[in-house]
């Protein structure tokens, strides 16, 4: 347990009280289902940027660990490639998504392919992508470190706080609490830089103490390895959080502008987090910092260099980074249950009130599912990221095909690409987990992540079935 000053504890406590109050009063802005789901499609530019930026980052410790272990290549794989995909999203998708006036990615699929089965499968894979099990586990670990609580209490309290405001205020509660969390995140990562420089020194300190390849932008990695990591950025193109914020924007121009501004924030933020990891490594190599494990390197350097009060703000930023993702993901999962499956597959005549109530049930179910995974199936949580990538393999082709494929939109093609893409990635993943290396890491066939063969097969299936289907239609 960390021995924090009461001022730091008060700042953390103040944060929780503030988000509970904001979440509580945000309910006043809810008058109908559209308000509950999409904040009445009234997101202005500042709140669009704040909620997108804060939701996108699920944790600081993981980024700190990568930077500590591998150096500046962390920025290349976790930053640079992603900016390119964000830019593509901003220029070619964002405003079109808003103009469609829909609510979720499965809505988009049904609109493109006029098929309920495609919607249903889309909802299932979306749900897998947004189940916040690993984030709940992260918040549990942070609480264990800060307050010495057992893990399950940390997970439970984090879940209950999130459920309280998300259930009560829906997306409005999510975006207003996201704004607070955004400010804390930015302050937390920015403040640590001047203190690290002051404590340890400038560029010479880094060049003297870091391992030789840590300041090399490629880190000595092969091009293939960099590309394999970098192309995980494709996730963005079917990220339900991105779509939801675009749908909720006040007008059709905000999504593009908002994502372009967000790229600026991500760039500034990533440089700070990467260098903090580098400072932690250099200080550890110089014997000036005791790092218990690379996972906590970011926390260790913060505790070592930040004064009372500033440390409290940093730790609150650390918690806020995780909480802002948990609330958004849980709410998205609940919308998959209520809007995509309950309303549009099983109960087309359900009233808005029934759908809203089902969303509240969905929030509890999603949180329970994720919490159970986090606490009782921790080995599954380690896999969950890979399971999430199966969702990308399944959805990226039919979603982008819907936007860009010039021919007739075939429901059979969409279904084939979803099913085959998911099946290939899943088989790839199972093979990998049945063949673990001595470190316990999965050994995938050809050393390729499951995402890529899944996407390739999904694309081939989409093109082939589209072609066959259009020929059949011409024949008729």
């Amino acid at each position, binding site marked *: 347990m960390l021995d924090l000053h009461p001022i730091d504890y008060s700042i953390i406590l103040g944060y929780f009280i503030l988000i509970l109050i904001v979440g509580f009063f945000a309910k006043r802005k809810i008058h109908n289902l559209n308000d509950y789901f999409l904040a009445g499609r009234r997101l202005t530019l*500042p*709140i669009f940027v704040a909620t997108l930026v804060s939701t996108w980052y699920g944790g600081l410790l993981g980024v700190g660990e990568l930077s500590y272990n591998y150096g500046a290549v962390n920025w290349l794989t976790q930053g640079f490639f992603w900016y390119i995909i964000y830019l593509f999203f901003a220029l070619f998708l964002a405003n079109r998504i808003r103009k469609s006036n829909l609510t979720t990615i499965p809505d988009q699929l049904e609109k493109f392919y006029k098929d309920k089965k495609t919607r249903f499968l889309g909802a299932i894979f979306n749900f897998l992508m947004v189940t916040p099990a690993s984030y709940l586990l992260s918040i549990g670990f942070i609480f264990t470190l800060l307050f010495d609580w057992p893990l399950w209490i940390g997970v439970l309290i984090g879940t209950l706080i999130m459920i309280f405001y998300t259930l009560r205020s829906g997306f409005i509660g999510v975006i207003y609490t996201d704004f607070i969390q955004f400010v804390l995140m930015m302050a937390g990562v*920015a403040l640590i*830089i001047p203190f690290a*420089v002051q404590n340890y020194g400038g560029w010479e300190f880094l060049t003297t103490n870091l391992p030789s390849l840590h300041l090399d932008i490629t880190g000595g990695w092969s091009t293939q390895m960099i590309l394999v990591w970098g192309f995980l950025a494709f996730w963005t193109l079917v990220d339900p959080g991105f779509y939801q914020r675009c749908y909720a924007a006040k007008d059709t121009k905000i999504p593009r502008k908002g994502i372009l501004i967000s790229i600026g924030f991500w760039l500034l933020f990533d440089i*700070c987090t990467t260098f903090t990891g580098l400072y932690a490594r250099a200080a550890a190599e110089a014997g000036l910092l005791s790092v218990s494990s690379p996972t906590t390197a970011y926390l260790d350097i913060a505790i070592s260099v930040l004064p009372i009060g500033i440390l409290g703000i940093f730790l609150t930023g650390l918690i806020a980074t995780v909480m802002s993702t948990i609330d958004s993901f849980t709410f998205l999962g609940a919308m998959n249950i209520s809007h995509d499956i309950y309303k549009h597959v099983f109960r087309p005549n359900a009233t808005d009130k029934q759908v809203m109530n089902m969303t509240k049930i969905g929030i509890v179910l999603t949180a329970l599912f994720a919490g159970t995974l986090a606490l009782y199936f921790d080995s599954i949580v380690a896999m969950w990221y890979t399971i999430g990538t199966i969702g990308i393999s399944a959805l990226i082709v039919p979603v982008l095909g819907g936007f860009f494929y010039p021919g007739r939109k075939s429901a059979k093609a969409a279904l084939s690409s979803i099913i085959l893409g998911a099946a290939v990635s899943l088989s790839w993943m199972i093979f990998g987990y049945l063949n673990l290396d001595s470190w316990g890491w999965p050994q995938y066939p050809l050393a390729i992540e499951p995402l890529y063969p899944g996407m390739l097969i999904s694309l081939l299936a989409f093109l082939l079935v589209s072609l066959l289907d259009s020929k059949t239609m011409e024949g008729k």
Partner: protein
Amino acid sequence: MDPIILLQLDAVILVIATVILSYYFFKDMIKEFKEKK
């Protein structure tokens, strides 16, 4: 130029950008509040 000066500048710009965004957020909120009144 010393890269560390650029790094510190990066952190300062991040804080200033956050303050500017917060300013516009509150400006929008006040505008919305006045319109409702």
